[in-house]
């Protein structure tokens, strides 16, 4: 390249980019015209750089000077894992415990456990005491005597019902199949003729 041939646009771009070849640098040092062309294009870029930085500094000044950092220390990460594990265990443990309780109740209702009958006996005793006019709850009694009293009570109720409620069989004048001594509600088994 001789000094009479000026720089092309690409060469001027190279100068601006900082990718300066030796021949270009030599020409630029000697050619005022090309220096002017480079400066002509460098000026708007320099203005952009200055004004945009001024704008950005002003914007930054209006922002909070401190950032809120998320805490990520090792012990807190460990605590997070522990909390997650605890939640998982509770999530699994509670349904399992409920299932076990329900199974126990089912077993108890089938009569294999003594807890449920005892509770029922105590309840009946309270009912009996209430029937006698005694206030409050009574002390637990022996099971055999209790059962005997229960049976007596139930028989008394049965008798009362027999006396007060007229049987539909009596209404229509029907006699029991097993004879008059069989009583209401006790019918002879049906005979199937061959």
């Amino acid at each position, binding site marked *: 390249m001789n000094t009479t041939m000026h720089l092309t*646009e*690409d060469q001027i*771009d190279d100068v*601006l*980019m*900082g*990718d300066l070849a030796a021949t270009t640098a030599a020409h630029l040092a000697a050619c005022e015209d090309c220096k002017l*062309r480079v400066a*002509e*294009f460098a*000026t*708007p*870029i320099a*203005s*952009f*750089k*200055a*004004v*945009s*930085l*001024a*704008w*950005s*500094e*002003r*914007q*930054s000044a209006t*922002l909070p*000077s*401190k*950032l809120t*950092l*998320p805490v*990520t220390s090792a012990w807190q990460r460990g605590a997070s894992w522990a909390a997650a594990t605890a939640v998982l265990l509770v999530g699994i443990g509670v349904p399992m415990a409920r299932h076990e309780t329900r199974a126990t109740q089912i077993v108890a209702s089938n009569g294999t456990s003594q807890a449920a009958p005892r509770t029922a006996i105590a309840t009946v005793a309270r009912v009996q005491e209430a029937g006698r006019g005694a206030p409050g709850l009574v002390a637990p009694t022996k099971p055999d005597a209790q059962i005997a009293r229960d049976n007596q009570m139930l028989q008394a109720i049965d008798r009362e019902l027999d006396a007060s409620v007229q049987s539909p069989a009596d209404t229509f004048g029907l006699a029991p199949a097993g004879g008059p001594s069989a009583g209401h509600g006790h019918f002879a088994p049906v005979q199937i003729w061959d």
Partner: protein
Amino acid sequence: MQLALDVTMTNVQAGERNSTELDDIDALVRTYRPRLLRFVTFSIGDPDLAESITQDCFLKAYNGRGSFRGDCSVNTWLTSIALNLIRDQQRLQKFRFWRQARATAIDVSDAANFLASHESSAEARILAIERTEQVQAALENLSVNQRAIFLMRFAEDMDLAEIAATIKMPINTVKTHLHRALKAVRAQVGGSR
């Protein structure tokens, strides 16, 4: 910043001192936020989103400061993080560049009041604003990579090798992008002969 520009410093010393610099998040923000905010803002064209990305960038840098090896300046490292965040945003299509961001466009018209003394006369300020708006308008028509490379070279003063490493492109590709960007800017500002 001064540490990063000291060319006599060895890499090990630079790494140690930069790590110390990264430990103080407040000082880091004070020092680098204006430049980083400018890079992000003029890259995406949305000042509101740029603030959010800049903040994310500092948080990411602070949390990942252990991975900083000191083989580049803190500013370059922050710029590369910001570039990744911008690309993430672009990938998620949470915004579209420039044309859709007109509602919150950058208004640099009053920024000239804060310029340095050599631009302090009223006429110089008006001229500076006018040139800036021309370059800004030219940037709008560039691709994302062209714009980012232009800003890294002419706003951040990064050299070509540094830009290539930051944007993870061959240096010749960086040059091609820069040539295209400069042609567009030249056409806009009327500097072409």
